[in-house]
């Protein structure tokens, strides 16, 4: 845990401020060097990895090519494997007018996906921070019972309770609304565990110091716990943003109006129904590229937190 990155608490907490400046251990060093030098093995290593990268990237490359050519070119089997000149008009058409069986414009779906993903990710972080703080820093009746209740939700994925959950949401009049799209997905056992684990590593001396300074629990929460949890929050945000953006089953059943389609659902609606020939693949593929872009950018740009989040949420 990196204590020094926590910002200075605001004035009037001198004792706590001193505690936060204490020295701390730094991370371990890196492994260096190879056991031995085998040129053939080195060549094989890169050959296998390059092949893996190429095979894994292939579907996305074909998708990108298909999004830059005309509908007729896509239908001519085999389609070309070199990008065409229609990139801008295809993406423009999809963004402004949607495609085929789903007439909703893609910009609207992207906006819906962005709203849902942000609300889900931030909502999960906020309510899990609060409940983990209560469970770690207070003693109260039913504390462990509540903790187990949150734990048990791990065993109740939406896939196994689809119909009754749908009924609850419909009884609450939340179908076709942002609340219905996001609120039922905000509970998070993983995030609560992660924060609980992290809070347990915060030295007791900090809470002690805060109490000597006369700071209440919420002051301690804002000035110490929240700033110290920044790394965990960033890691969770990356994972939960991807989770929220990529939701499928839930938006599929709670949205019937095109206004509330997320982009992942939109793609499915574009290819569903209607005959084979009516699918406008060049526009569907442009939409697929756009649907992949935000979460892929998050993974690539925030790689460090992504890896941390993935590993932490499995502990």
């Amino acid at each position, binding site marked *: 845990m990196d204590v020094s990155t926590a910002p200075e608490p605001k004035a009037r907490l001198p004792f706590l401020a001193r505690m936060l400046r204490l020295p701390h251990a730094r991370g371990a060093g890196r492994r260096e060097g*190879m*056991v*031995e030098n085998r040129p053939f*093995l*080195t060549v094989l290593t*890169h050959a296998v*990895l390059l092949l*893996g*990268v190429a095979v*894994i990237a292939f*579907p*996305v490359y*074909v*998708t990108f090519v298909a999004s830059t050519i005309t509908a007729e070119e896509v239908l001519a089997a085999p*389609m070309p494997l070199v990008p065409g000149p229609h990139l801008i008009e295809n993406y423009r058409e999809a963004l402004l007018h949607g495609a085929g069986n789903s007439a909703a414009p893609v910009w609207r779906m992207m906006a819906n996906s962005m709203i849902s993903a942000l609300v889900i990710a931030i909502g999960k972080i906020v*309510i899990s921070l*609060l*409940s983990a703080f*209560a469970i*770690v820093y207070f003693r*109260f009746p039913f*504390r462990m019972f*509540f903790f187990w*209740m*949150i734990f048990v*939700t791990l*065993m109740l*994925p939406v*896939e*196994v*309770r*689809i*119909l*009754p959950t749908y009924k*609850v*949401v419909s009884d*609450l009049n939340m179908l076709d609304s942002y609340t219905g799209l996001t*609120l039922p997905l*905000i*509970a998070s056992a993983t995030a*609560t565990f992660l924060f609980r684990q992290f809070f347990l590593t915060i030295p007791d001396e900090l809470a002690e110091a805060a*109490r000597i300074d006369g700071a209440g629990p919420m002051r*301690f929460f804002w000035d110490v716990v929240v700033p110290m949890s920044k790394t965990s929050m960033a890691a969770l945000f990356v994972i939960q943003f*991807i989770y929220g953006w*990529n939701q*499928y*089953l839930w938006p*599929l*059943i709670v949205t019937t109006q095109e206004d509330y389609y997320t982009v*992942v659902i939109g793609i*499915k609606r574009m*290819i569903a129904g209607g005959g084979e020939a009516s699918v406008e*693949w060049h526009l569907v593929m442009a939409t697929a590229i756009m*649907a*992949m872009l935000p979460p892929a950018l998050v*993974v690539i740009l925030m790689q460090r937190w992504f*890896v*941390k989040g*993935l*590993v932490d949420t499995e502990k």
Partner: protein
Amino acid sequence: MEKRVIFRSWWLPYLLVAPQLAITIVFFFLPAGQAVWQSLLNQDPFGINVEFVGLDNFAMLMRDEHYLASFRVTAVFSVLVASFGLVISLILAVFADRALRGAGVYKMLLIWPYAVAHAVAAVLWLFLFNPTLGIVAHWIKGLGIAWDPLLDGTDAMILVVVAAVWNQISYNFLFFLAGLQSIPKSLIEAAAIDGAGPGRRFVTIVFPLLSPTTFFLLVVNIVYAFFNTFAIIDAATGGGPGQATEILVYKVYKDGFKALDLGSSAAQSVILMAIVIALTVVQFRYVERKVQY
């Protein structure tokens, strides 16, 4: 582990856990309880005639050929997804662990598919494997092999397995790589000094030390194939042709939403819950989570 220093308040902690608990109760426990209750009832789609039938719904499921077929499909699907997913990502991780130069670049080029939604992955592969315009389908036919995932059950299964594995490789890869990097270098050097070549070192040292990671990933991949692949099935094949790719979670959805067979769908939900609980217990009791990064 507990805190020595705590704060005191009789109302604040309840206020703090309230939002999480409210959502948990309304959207998790209430529906789960309803599923259990409905699994004991027989009712028509409009809820007019309701009759308590005990375990009849379960008995009927056990005799239902379609349900048993769905179990078999799920078993085949998850074995294929888990084994291909683990083997391919282990190979890539072993080589990425060796590649000192460019290891970071390879890692970045291999982990991004995690970010692709399952439904989008399904559409991508559906497009490649489409019998009339897909480029991969074109190559397969060029080899003289008949190919049509819309009509042939085996072809459809191949399609969903490929999409599911493609989507999951990056996750397995990251955990294998982390596991490999946490193996003490001194062990491998000692074996090298004793004259063991790379292959022998992998079999006698690396793979056994990796077994906690492998077992952990095996459980995760089975859970993934059972429950998280709904989107792949729905977007790529819709469970078809016939019932060839109708896994259990897809059947719950289909029987509940399309056929409106509430009692049967609820009973299937209850069986699935039992499976999730069993898998979660295995994961928490027996899996050593000693993955370090």
